[in-house]
C-alpha cells in the first residue's frame, strides 16, 4: 500500500515532504540529470537578490569533520535574469517551486517579493534572514527578533502566497524568532540555516575560506538542527520545515518526529544528487512498516 505522503505548509500543498534546500541545487538544471524533479515535493531556489551578486572570492568551501563550511556569498544572477533565464526551465519541471529571497535591506526583501509574486510558477517564498556569509545577507536581521518580525510583516503585505521565514541557528532562543514570524503572518518557518564556523591553515595561519568564516552544514549539525526544530515545535504553533544534515530517510523521519511538517536536503545533494528520490522510497517503506497511512501522522509525535 502506498501511504499518503502529502503535506501542507500553510496553503501550500506538497505531494511529499521532501524539499531541496536553497543554494544546494542551483536552479534545478544540473540536478535534474540525476533524478526526476517532478517526484520531489518542492524545490527551493538559490537565494535571489534584487541585483546580481558575484559572490565571495575563492576559496569558498572546505570540508570539516562530517560537515563542510561554505561562504558562497549569495552568488546569484539577480532577479531580472532569474525571471528571464531560470524560470523557463523551472516551469518545465513539474515540481512545486519555492523562491528563496535574500536582501541587504528590509525594502529589498519587500521589493523582491512584490516583483516575484507575479510569477505564477512560484508557489511560496522562503525569506532568508539568516545567511551568515555576507554582511548584508540577513544574519544581521536574523539575530534581531524585531527585524525578523518587521520583515515578515512587510513581506506579508505584498503577497498572498505562502511565506516561510528561514531562521538562523546562531541565536540563543530560536523559538522567539519563530514566534515573531508567526505573529506577523508567516505561514511557516524553516530551520536551520548554517552555523557560523571557521577553519585555519596552521602553516600559513590564514583562514581556509577567504571570507574568514563560513556556514557549517552537513551531518555534523544534525543534532543541533533537531534540537532547534524541537524547541520551536514545543513553543510555537507554526509549521516547521526541518533542515540540517539530512543524509537519508532515517534522518528525515527524525526531523518529522521532532516537529517538522516537511524537510529540506542540502549538503547531501552534493554527495548523492539522487538522495531526494531515494528518501521518498525510504519514507514509503517506513510508513508501511509502521502502519502509517498519512505521513502527517508522524509530525511532532515525539514522546517526551
Amino acid at each position, binding site marked *: 500500500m502506498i501511504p499518503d505522503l502529502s503535506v501542507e505548509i500553510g496553503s501550500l500543498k506538497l505531494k511529499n515532504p521532501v524539499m531541496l534546500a536553497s543554494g544546494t541545487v542551483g536552479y534545478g*538544471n*544540473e540536478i535534474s540529470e540525476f533524478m526526476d524533479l517532478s517526484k520531489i515535493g518542492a524545490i527551493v531556489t538559490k537565494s535571489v537578490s534584487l541585483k546580481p551578486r558575484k559572490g565571495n572570492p575563492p576559496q*569558498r568551501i572546505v570540508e570539516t569533520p562530517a560537515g563542510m563550511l561554505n561562504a558562497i556569498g549569495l552568488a546569484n544572477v539577480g532577479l531580472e535574469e532569474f525571471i528571464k533565464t531560470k524560470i523557463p526551465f523551472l516551469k518545465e519541471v513539474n515540481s512545486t517551486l519555492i523562491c528563496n529571497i535574500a536582501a541587504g535591506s528590509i525594502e529589498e526583501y519587500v521589493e523582491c517579493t512584490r516583483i516575484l509574486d507575479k510569477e505564477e510558477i512560484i508557489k511560496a517564498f522562503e525569506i532568508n534572514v539568516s545567511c551568515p556569509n555576507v554582511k548584508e545577507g540577513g544574519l544581521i536581521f536574523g539575530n534581531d527578533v524585531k527585524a525578523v518580525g518587521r520583515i515578515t510583516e512587510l513581506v506579508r503585505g505584498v503577497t498572498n502566497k505562502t511565506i516561510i521565514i528561514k531562521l538562523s541557528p546562531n541565536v540563543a532562543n530560536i523559538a522567539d524568532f519563530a514566534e515573531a514570524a508567526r505573529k506577523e503572518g508567516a505561514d511557516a518557518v524553516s530551520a536551520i540555516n548554517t552555523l557560523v564556523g571557521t577553519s585555519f591553515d596552521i602553516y600559513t595561519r590564514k583562514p581556509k575560506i577567504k571570507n574568514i568564516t563560513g556556514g557549517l552544514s552537513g*551531518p555534523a549539525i544534525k543534532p543541533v538542527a533537531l534540537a532547534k526544530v524541537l524547541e520551536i515545535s514545543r513553543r510555537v504553533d507554526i509549521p516547521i520545515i526541518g533542515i540540517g544534515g539530512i543524509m537519508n530517510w532515517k534522518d528525515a523521519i527524525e526531523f518529522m518526529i521532532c516537529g517538522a511538517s516537511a524537510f529540506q536536503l542540502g549538503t547531501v545533494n*552534493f554527495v548523492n544528487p539522487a538522495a531526494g528520490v531515494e528518501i521518498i522510497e525510504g519514507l514509503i517503506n517506513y510508513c508501511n512498516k509502521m502502519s502509517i497511512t498519512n505521513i502527517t501522522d508522524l509530525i511532532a509525535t515525539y514522546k517526551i
Partner: protein
Amino acid sequence: MDIYKIIVVSNTALQENVFLLKCLSSEIASKILPGQFCNIKVSESDFPLLRRPFSICDVEGDYISFMYEVHGEGTKLLSHKKEGDLIDLIGPLGKGFNYKSEYETAIFISGGIGVAPFPYLTRSLDGSIPYKIFLGGRTENQIHTYGLHNYEISTDDGSMGYKGNVVQLFEKHIPLLDKSKIKVFGCGPNPMLRALKELCLLHEINCEVSVECAMACGFGICQGCPIEKAEESDKYYLVCKDGPVFNIKDVVI
C-alpha cells in the same frame, strides 16, 4: 553525467604514494574525454563527507583508470580499495582539453601528479601530430611516466633529468619550436601554472591548463569552485562545470 557503481579491477602502487586505480565501466569509458574528471566516493560511510575529484588518466576498451597521489584521509581510504570492491562515482564531469584544434605540435607540461590526465590525452591525439612531454617534480619519486612516451624530465633537486622546474625546462626548448604552431597543455600545482601562464603570454603561445580547486559537488550546484575570469573581473567561471580545463588567457590563476 550520472552516478555509477563500478567494479575495481586493480589498484596498484606506481610509487610509494602514487596509485593507479583501474575500474570497469563501459558507460564512462565510452563517454569520457581527456581532461574530464570523475567525483569519487572514497568510503561507504558518510565519512569523509565529500567526494574526491580525479582526472581521467586512461581509457582502454571498457576500462578506465585514475592516477592519484595519497594526500590526506580521502586518498588514503581510496588506496585501500581492492579488486572486486565497488566504487561509487559521478562522471564524466567538466570540460576536457581542446586537443583537436589547429596546431602542428603538442607540448604537454606537468608538475607532480598533474601528469595524471596525460596518458589518455596523448593517446587520443591523432597519431600524426608530433608531441613532446615535459614532466616535472620536486624529486625523482614525483616523476610518473606511466603510459607516456616522448618525455623529458626535470626535478627541482636534480635527482633525475634537468635540474630546475619544468617550466624552465620547457623555456629552454622554446627556441627550437615554431611558437605559432604549437599548443601547450599544462597540468600541475598553481605556482607552476602561473609561471607557465607568464611564459606563454610572453611568447604568445596557445595554452590550455587543467586547474584544481576545492569542490563540494563537482557538477555545478554548489557554486563552491569559482575562478576569476581574466576579462570580466566581476564574474567567475565554475571550475567544475566551465573547466577544469581553461585557456590560460581566460582565467586568473
